[in-house]
């Protein structure tokens, strides 16, 4: 365990599935060679197969503290990257050309099963679930590596791969129960989310958090009593880790989604349980019941005009309040760094 731990809370009630976070991350970190099929941030529709396809059935993590075998995810399960025919579709003057992939028709990719979800009309349901590496307190990836190439920083708990040490053995990929590690076939090394380390070190929020138009992603240190993370995870106990049964102790937490009403045969709203609670329990553990009840109760309070600290935090009227100590503006930091470099 590290002395300090950065953490993220993702409010699933606010995520609109726009993928701005995904693209922000892609642009910032994975536009290099061998990274074409890499998505350190993904947003998938739940219920769904996710990225890589059916990752929840691939094993890894721990059970009663014992390391569990995992499957090595294949590139095709993440989805082979493809190029679009922008040139032809947009600039060729051909009125009938439509935008599509170049070459072989792909049959899987990240976010492939977008908006499919589950349930029967009119009671179908889905929600979006953004994912990154959880920078776990007990990282299965780190414990699996025979070369000690993965480490967890003491000052902030960020889990990093030392690519100078990595030999591309990929035991980490198998062992991570969230399948958050990618293999770069060009460099022959494993790569994953670095929690925007160079930004965070300068007090700037992660790209996925800052770019999010939905104000979905809170940041901070887990033990900072004045920050949003502590309030949501420890004080109000509404933010929960995904699949706690994998026993890696993730440091990304989720505000579970509240369901819209279900309708009866006549189309009348009957209850607010359209998302089956058992499904949510399968994702977030039994604590999800209390979390949902708590959020509902606090909503009611606000409806009655009473104050609610929890609702204030979740609404996040002041954007920068979401980011704990990481409120520096990138442009200011860039200026300071330039000045520093000039001496």
């Amino acid at each position, binding site marked *: 365990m590290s002395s300090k731990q950065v953490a993220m809370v993702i409010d699933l009630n606010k995520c609109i599935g726009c993928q701005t976070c995904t693209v922000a991350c892609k642009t910032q970190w994975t536009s290099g060679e061998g990274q074409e099929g890499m998505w350190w941030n993904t947003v998938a529709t739940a219920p769904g197969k996710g990225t890589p396809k059916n990752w929840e059935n691939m094993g890894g993590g721990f059970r009663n503290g*014992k*390391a*569990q*075998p*995992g499957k*090595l995810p*294949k*590139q095709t399960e993440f989805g082979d990257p493809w190029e679009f025919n922008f040139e032809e579709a947009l600039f060729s003057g051909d009125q009938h050309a439509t935008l599509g992939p170049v070459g072989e028709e792909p049959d899987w990719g990240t976010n492939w099963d977008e908006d499919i979800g589950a349930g029967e009309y009119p009671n179908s349901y889905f929600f979006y679930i953004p994912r990154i590496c959880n920078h776990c307190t007990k990282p*299965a990836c780190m*414990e*699996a*590596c*025979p*070369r*000690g190439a993965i480490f967890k920083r003491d000052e902030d708990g960020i889990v990093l791969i030392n690519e100078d040490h990595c*030999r591309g*053995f*990929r*035991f980490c990929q*198998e*062992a991570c129960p969230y399948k958050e590690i990618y*293999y770069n*076939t060009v460099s022959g090394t494993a790569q994953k989310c670095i929690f925007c380390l160079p930004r965070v070190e300068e007090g700037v929020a992660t790209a996925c958090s800052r770019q999010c138009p939905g104000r979905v992603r809170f940041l901070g240190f887990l033990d900072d009593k004045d920050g949003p993370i502590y309030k949501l995870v420890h004080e109000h106990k509404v933010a929960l880790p995904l699949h706690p049964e994998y026993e890696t102790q993730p440091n990304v937490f989720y505000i579970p989604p509240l369901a819209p009403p279900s309708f009866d045969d006549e189309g009348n709203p009957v209850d607010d349980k359209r998302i089956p609670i058992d499904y949510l329990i399968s994702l977030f553990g039994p604590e999800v019941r209390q979390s949902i009840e708590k959020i509902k109760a606090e909503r009611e309070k606000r409806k009655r005009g009473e104050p609610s600290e929890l609702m204030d935090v979740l609404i996040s009227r002041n954007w920068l309040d979401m980011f704990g100590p990481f409120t520096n503006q990138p442009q200011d930091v860039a200026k300071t760094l330039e000045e520093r470099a000039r001496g």
Partner: protein
Amino acid sequence: MQSLNVANIGGYLDPASGEWRDVPGTTVEMVPAPLGLQPTDYIIASWQDRPYGEVESLLASSVHDGNRIAIRLDWASARPNTGAGEGFPDAAAIAFPVRGEPELMQMGSEDAPVHFLQWMARKNMVRSVLATGIGLSVTAPSIAETVAAGWSSGRWTVVFTREMSGTSDVSSLSPEKNSQIGFAIWNGANEERAGIKAVSPAWEDLILRA
């Protein structure tokens, strides 16, 4: 095994070279590297019910010319695996004790390192590596190592060459003193890598004929 003294190893660089026909080979029994010695619980948990290191033996032969030594390995492999893209490559290694009395299975220790040359079918490359234990290896100084490999009719043949003189981290080989050698084989098709491999259970004597 013995290393025959020849005028020049130049004719032996290609594993398919006819010159090798006159060089007697030694059959080396191979065993799976022990599961209990694997460095992480994860590797033990994921391989305990999975066979690996199934190459039962390899045929080793060698020649030297006083300056350089060539060592040829020949083993059964149903199909060649170059490990292109995301696959794992077939691979082989020859190991030498550097100083002290390193345990081959343990890949040496701090005081008694093991030097090895590893060939990988991916890009047909060879690496010079110094190990001071399992999972503890760093790039070793070059000793002008080369490798050539070929696969045909269900067998890999690989010829390693290196200088016979050593450095502080590479043992020197000479007809004056007895040397030792160890072997490892990785079957890429079975996702074998790192400590998941077939090894010779103990050091073999390597006698260089004068």
